[in-house]
């Protein structure tokens, strides 16, 4: 019989809640209270997440975010700033010692990204993993990913773009040199793609979730069983949201 992992489809939540839920699952899994878990989610309102090592002041136009009703949050994972709008976000939480996960961090990025590639294949999209943490289709980025390892547990989360609005994205993100901003926007438009752009029609969030579910099942030879957050995870998530991810102290710490 195939190993069973938990599937969570938590729908659309705020940036603070989303990051808090991922962290709560990480804690619960590290304590052996929940099985390896794959989660799919979205962001409402749209939000920017920045990597653990990034500086809010250097990456985000806070006033523009306020004006457009976009939240921002610092992740517990490294990597770059992401504008989360029309996308499916996933997370996977699994013990570091699980045989499915290579000990080598870079190799484990590749293994988890393979699940996403299998998922994209379900949608008729052929992509490639581009180390360190991207997935490309026709040489353009469609997915960014970030991993942390804490208390012997792996958390990797990432995005798969349904559609992308580079102009809005750059009205919210700061660029190192304002003089070359227009060129930068043109470059990024050339280097980023999305599922809807590739297939040439609107694709529903749920359809991508279903494709990615199959991708994870195939790559890891497991069965994903629909589940819910435990009471303890919910309580933890509320605590993390309140005491960490929604606070200025956390988000502006760098």
């Amino acid at each position: 019989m195939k190993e069973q992992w938990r599937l969570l489809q938590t729908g659309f939540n705020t940036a603070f809640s989303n990051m808090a839920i991922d962290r709560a699952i990480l804690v619960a899994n590290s304590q052996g209270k929940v099985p390896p878990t794959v989660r799919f989610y979205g962001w409402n309102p749209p939000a920017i997440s920045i990597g653990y090592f990034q500086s809010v002041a250097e990456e985000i136009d806070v006033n523009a975010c306020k004006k457009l009703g976009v939240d921002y949050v610092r992740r517990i994972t490294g990597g770059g700033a992401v504008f989360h709008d029309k996308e499916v976000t996933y997370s996977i939480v699994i013990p570091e010692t699980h045989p499915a996960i290579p000990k080598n961090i870079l190799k484990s990025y590749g293994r988890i990204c393979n699940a996403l590639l299998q998922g994209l294949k379900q949608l008729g999209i052929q992509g490639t993993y581009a180390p360190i943490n991207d997935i490309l289709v026709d040489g353009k980025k469609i997915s960014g990913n970030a991993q942390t390892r804490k208390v012997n547990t792996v958390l990797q989360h990432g995005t798969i773009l349904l559609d992308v609005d580079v102009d809005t994205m750059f009205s919210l993100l700061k660029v190192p040199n304002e003089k070359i901003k227009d060129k930068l926007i043109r470059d990024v438009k050339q280097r980023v793609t999305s599922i809807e752009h590739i297939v040439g029609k609107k694709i529903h969030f749920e359809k991508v979730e279903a494709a990615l579910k199959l991708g994870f099942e195939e790559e890891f030879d497991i069965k994903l069983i629909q589940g819910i957050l435990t009471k303890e995870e919910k309580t933890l998530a509320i605590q993390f949201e309140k005491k960490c991810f929604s606070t200025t102290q956390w988000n502006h710490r760098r």
Partner: protein
Amino acid sequence: MRSQSVYKVPQGKLLKISVEYNKRNNVIKNIWITGDFFAYPEETIELIEKKLRNTVIDQEQLLEKIRSVITEYHIQFIGVDAEGLTKGILMCKL
């Protein structure tokens, strides 16, 4: 005096370093290492920043200090390394 550098590590990530240092003897008073790189465990970046205080902005001394902290605390960097960090700090002085 305080100055900043932006350095794209070859085959790696974008490093943004801000250094406050004594211009007379080039000793670091404070340093902030930011960017889109990865480090495991993440919290050790604060430790590296702390350990770099009172270090002279000099290639050899910086490299030695960074390498020793990496070894002592088993830090794993992805997208940046000791050489990249050193270069980013040195660029602040130029």
